[in-house]
């Protein structure tokens, strides 16, 4: 029975042997005959599948693997240690929730499923090492699949997969670039078209119809950009490599799905993923990442045109020349292309890395985590200051007790508002909400926190902030909604559960010392307005609680920014409420300036100054004398004196008043706070020239555009 079955099986297997078996065997034989006994590395063949191209030499194969692995590994290290996935997570990774509602929504539009998967894996950026591992996996998979595709089609991988890896790596350095989504799209498109190429079946109609089915499903799953990539790869493979022009044309017709869909959904964006990258450079990088494979495929096809073993071809490979590719015989060409591409890739990655944005995100992240020293350290490396960075730096300075001393050591200018409004962009809303909450202005904090929720999406910091706001407003049920939402996010469940337990135990969470302190700062009076000026916000906070030190220091900082001497001197007696060991330096500078102005304009002495003048340090007075002397040495020519004054006095309030902006360098982390004073004020107060501050030159320092987060879906 067994023998009969076996014989029957043999007969069956022979009957079932595909027509192309002979071709495949010949092809394999031809491959073995190739010098160097090439290992094609092509995927396993299904019976009847078109034969892959002959492989590349074994030596070249190993080198390619080493180079590719090395590049992917180094890229992952760069992302892990340089770019830092936690910064990408903080800045732009789309919030992801474990609930069926979110999952259902991903089916509602083309590309939703891919984006859902990308958002899910992007959560791994919550930790630097895990994020680096994710990067390695994505880059490695993209390289492997891209390489497989090229080996299958043209027998050599070349440098194209490496270019794709470099393009993706460069995108990571843009921070708001949807790297996971683009990488997954590349991966899926390459894998799908490779699988389609390997399908059995030779009839034209079968291949075209199967491709249309694949492309339609792919369009819905992966979205427009990977869909176009899929079609381009299929067309390139069919026409450029396999010379099946009819099949290529049939596959190309699948592109009509896009305009058809756009006719149905007028607001559909065919570049929906690329448009989430901010900036033209990021957009170009995204397009390059998508196009590198099809362009590389076509270039490779042009370079290797006709250089194919004809015995491995079938009847549809007419016209192919019988010579083996000569590339394998020119290792120097391969090496030099790798070196060139690697060099160019490294340069691209380095040039794309937005280090200023990195520092800006660091400042925000450390401030959110209450690591004030780290925030200030990161701020010292900033050269462009966004509104978010400004807000967090001011908060951090206050928290470390250096706001009245070091406020002008970070760049400031006349039109800057301590609590800015929307014209500076929506990206600063969360930072402003945090500031307002700590000032005690809970309703104003709610305003900006909700704007952040609407624009940045339900990010963990925003949800936590809103929960605290509504606890303070005695709306624990509303706070619970935000905490319940937070617990649906990966890696935040424990934190949310802890807060929910605390809330359940005490709806006012009176045990929380910070909330208890903030309750003492809540305003008692209603001041309704579309937008309250900063000074009014701060004065109201002080009116609610005289001991609100933050409101006091912010108010004084605002007076310094606005050069509101009258208001500043009026608030000086409040220093007694806060037990300052001495008058802060910047306030001293303003008081001295006030005294000089009065003297020059023959105004009576300020009573307040009369009370505090003995407390002004001699060092500050001496500094003023030196400032006046330098100015006088330029014969009161402000423009000419600017450079010299900036070098020595750029961080003083006198320079700021004169020029409308600071001129010094930000502080280094080693600056130490000194608290000793000389208490003698000399009589020889040097006269200041009668300057009209309204003629101060317009600030020229470019304010970095607000790095808004990726828009919510």
């Amino acid at each position: 029975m067994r023998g009969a079955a076996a014989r029957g099986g043999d007969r069956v297997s022979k009957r079932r042997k595909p027509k192309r078996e002979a071709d495949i065997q010949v092809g394999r034989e031809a491959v073995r005959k190739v010098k160097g006994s090439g290992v094609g590395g092509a995927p396993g063949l299904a019976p009847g599948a078109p034969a892959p191209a002959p492989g590349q030499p074994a030596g070249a194969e190993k080198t390619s693997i080493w180079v590719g692995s090395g590049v992917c590994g180094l890229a992952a290290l760069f992302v892990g240690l340089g770019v830092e996935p936690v910064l990408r997570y903080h800045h732009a990774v789309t919030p992801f929730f474990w609930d069926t509602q979110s999952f259902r929504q991903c089916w509602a539009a083309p590309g939703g499923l891919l984006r859902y998967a990308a958002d899910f894996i992007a959560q791994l950026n919550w930790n630097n090492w895990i994020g680096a591992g994710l990067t390695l996996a994505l880059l490695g998979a993209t390289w492997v699949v891209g390489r497989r595709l090229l080996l299958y089609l043209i027998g050599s991988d070349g440098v194209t997969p490496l270019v794709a890896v470099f393009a993706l790596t460069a995108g990571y350095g843009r921070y708001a670039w949807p790297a996971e989504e683009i990488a997954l799209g590349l991966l899926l498109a390459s894998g799908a078209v490779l699988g389609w190429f390997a399908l059995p079946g030779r009839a034209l109609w079968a291949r075209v119809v199967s491709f249309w089915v694949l492309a339609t499903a792919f369009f819905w799953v992966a979205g427009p950009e990977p869909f176009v990539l899929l079609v381009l790869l299929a067309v390139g493979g069919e026409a450029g490599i396999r010379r099946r022009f009819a099949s290529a044309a049939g596959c190309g017709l699948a592109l009509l799905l896009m305009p058809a869909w756009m006719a149905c959904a007028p607001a559909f964006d065919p570049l929906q993923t690329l448009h989430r990258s901010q900036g033209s450079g990021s957009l170009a990088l995204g397009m390059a990442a998508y196009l590198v494979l099809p362009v590389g495929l076509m270039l490779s096809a042009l370079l290797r045109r006709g250089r194919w073993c004809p015995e491995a071809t079938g009847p549809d490979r007419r016209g192919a020349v019988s010579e083996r590719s000569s590339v394998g015989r020119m290792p120097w060409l391969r090496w030099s292309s790798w070196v060139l591409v690697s060099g160019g890739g490294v340069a691209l990655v380095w040039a794309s890395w937005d280090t200023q944005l990195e520092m800006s995100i660091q400042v925000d992240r450390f401030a959110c985590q209450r690591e004030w020293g780290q925030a200030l350290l990161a701020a010292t490396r900033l050269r462009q200051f966004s509104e978010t960075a400004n807000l967090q730096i001011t908060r951090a300075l206050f928290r470390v007790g250096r706001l009245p001393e070091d406020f002008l050591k970070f760049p400031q200018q006349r039109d800057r508002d301590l609590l800015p409004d929307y014209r500076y962009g929506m990206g600063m809303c969360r930072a402003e909400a945090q500031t307002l909450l700590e000032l005690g202005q809970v309703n104003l904090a709610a305003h900006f926190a909700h704007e952040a929720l609407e624009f940045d999406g339900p990010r963990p910091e925003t949800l936590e902030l809103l929960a605290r706001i509504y606890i303070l407003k005695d709306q624990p049920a509303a706070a619970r909604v935000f905490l319940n939402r937070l617990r649906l996010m990966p890696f935040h469940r424990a934190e949310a559960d802890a807060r929910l337990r605390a809330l359940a135990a005490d709806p006012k969470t009176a045990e929380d010392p910070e909330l208890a302190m903030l309750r003492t700062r809540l305003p008692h009076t209603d001041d309704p307005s579309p937008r309250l000026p900063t000074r009014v916000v701060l004065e109201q906070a002080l009116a609610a609680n005289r001991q609100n030190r933050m409101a006091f220091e912010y108010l004084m900082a605002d007076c310094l920014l606005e050069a509101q001497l009258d208001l500043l001197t009026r608030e000086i007696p409040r220093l007694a409420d806060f037990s300052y060991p001495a008058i802060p330096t910047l306030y001293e500078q303003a008081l001295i300036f006030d005294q000089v102005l009065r003297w020059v304009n023959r105004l009576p002495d300020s009573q307040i100054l009369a009370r505090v003048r003995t407390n002004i340090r001699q060092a500050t007075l001496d500094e003023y004398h030196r400032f006046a002397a330098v100015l006088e040495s330029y014969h009161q020519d402000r423009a000419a004196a600017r450079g010299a004054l900036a070098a020595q006095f750029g961080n003083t309030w006198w320079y700021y008043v004169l020029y409308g902006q600071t001129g010094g360098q930000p502080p280094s982390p080693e600056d130490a706070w000194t608290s000793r004073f000389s208490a003698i004020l000399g009589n020889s107060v040097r006269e200041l020239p009668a300057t009209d501050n309204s003629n101060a030159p317009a600030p020229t320092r470019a304010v970095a555009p607000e790095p808004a987060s990726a828009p919510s879906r």
Partner: protein
Amino acid sequence: MNPKLTWSLRRVWPGLIGLLALTIGIMLGLAPGRSSEPPPHARLVNRLPMLRPDYSDTVIPPNIAPLNFRVAEPGRAFWVEVRGERGMSIRIGSRASTVEIPAAPWRALLTTNAGSRIYFDVFAREPGGAWDRFLSVTNRVALEPIDGTLVYRLLGPLYNYYNDIGIYQRDLEGYRQKLIVDSSDIGHHCLNCHTFLNGRPDTFAFHVRGVAGPQPMILVQSNQVSRVDNTAGYFSWHPSGRLIAYSANKLSFFVHTTGEARDVFDADSDLKIYRVDANRVETPPVIGQPDWNETWPAWGPTGRHLYFCRARKQTLRDFRKVRYDLARVSYDLARDAWGKVETLVAAADSGLSASEPVVSPDGRWLLFCLAPYGNFPIYQPKADLYVMDLRTRHWRRLSINSDQADTWHSWSRNGRWVVFSSKRDNGLLARPYFTYVDEQGTFYKPFLLPQRDPAYYDAYLKTFNRPELVTGPVAVSRAALARAVLRPERVRRPASSVAEDQTPAAPHYSTAQ
């Protein structure tokens, strides 16, 4: 077949089957099961169980989706019997506190018990293994069904800016929610104030803001979509379908530093009439007086009266003094003749400000909101629902109000059900509640729109705005509505029979709730 492949499959398939069996076993283990017998020797707990949402002591329609709930009691396992005075009961046992009632038996139970009562018998197992039985939860099933579809707008708790707004429809006999149109379909512009003609799903209008030029109204008539380039605020269809009364408002948003943060001030508003058949806008002087602000138009069911709210103009500084009267004016469609304005609820008498009048389909009851001031009640925790008997003009505050804003009400076609938006759950996010109204005008305890997952609302960050009961699903496609905004084929530019209104272009903000 490839021998290697065969060999691989032979090795792998037992493992695959085992894995599949394990998965099924786990799912069955976790899924709530149906247990045939109640737990034995249960100890009676002499109180009602806490259910979330609170589906106790309410009146429900016979065609509502299953009222899934969570048993908010401590326990290691739970057993619930849903029974009526007639018919088969439904028994559910579960280790989780979530009770999901199967749809078909539920429908059969409600149908059989229409006009009588149903009961939830809840058992909870203590850690020691003993069972507790709570007092039976009782609900009444009304004879009258509710309209099959609820349409509402979903949006975040917005301030000045919006990003994602959508108008959705929900099948009330199940849980299916479907998007009608989303702001992303129309270039991220704002969607506003949908209004249906007599509860018909094929005829409605909504407003779009943020586009260049006049802020259009999208008109759907018998599922044909057109765009009307005419800025409008709140709409109301005349029951004939030939007119739409609308308000043109000048709204500004501001923030309080204490209490409820958001507020809106209406500096200037008038009522206008858009004649759909003639494509003409009219401003009858009786509803557009220069020293008054008229807003919130609502036609009565016969079309013989237009109900609205009006107040003397004030400045922003005196926003707390703004109190609207509730008024109506008679109208004869055949003669196109307006009567005199009649004040129904004077602000001077009530001390409160009226808004959102809606008359029941039988013309007897007028439901409206009263709030301390202004005409944006959803932002005021003290905003409550009131009802007036139009036969006697007697009006009263409803006992179903909460200590948070209760607003945005809509009647069912049979006049027995009202849906409204309430912030009673958390004071911030509005949820849709239904209440039964009997012929004597008694409003029964409201119940929350049921969801498949009873914990749905616990973590849901959007607010349900302007719920409207509609007799069937909206059939017009998203694509058609989007095209009407972005690439309209039918655009009406109405002629104005009086001077053009000076309503400014829509601000960047949404006064969404």
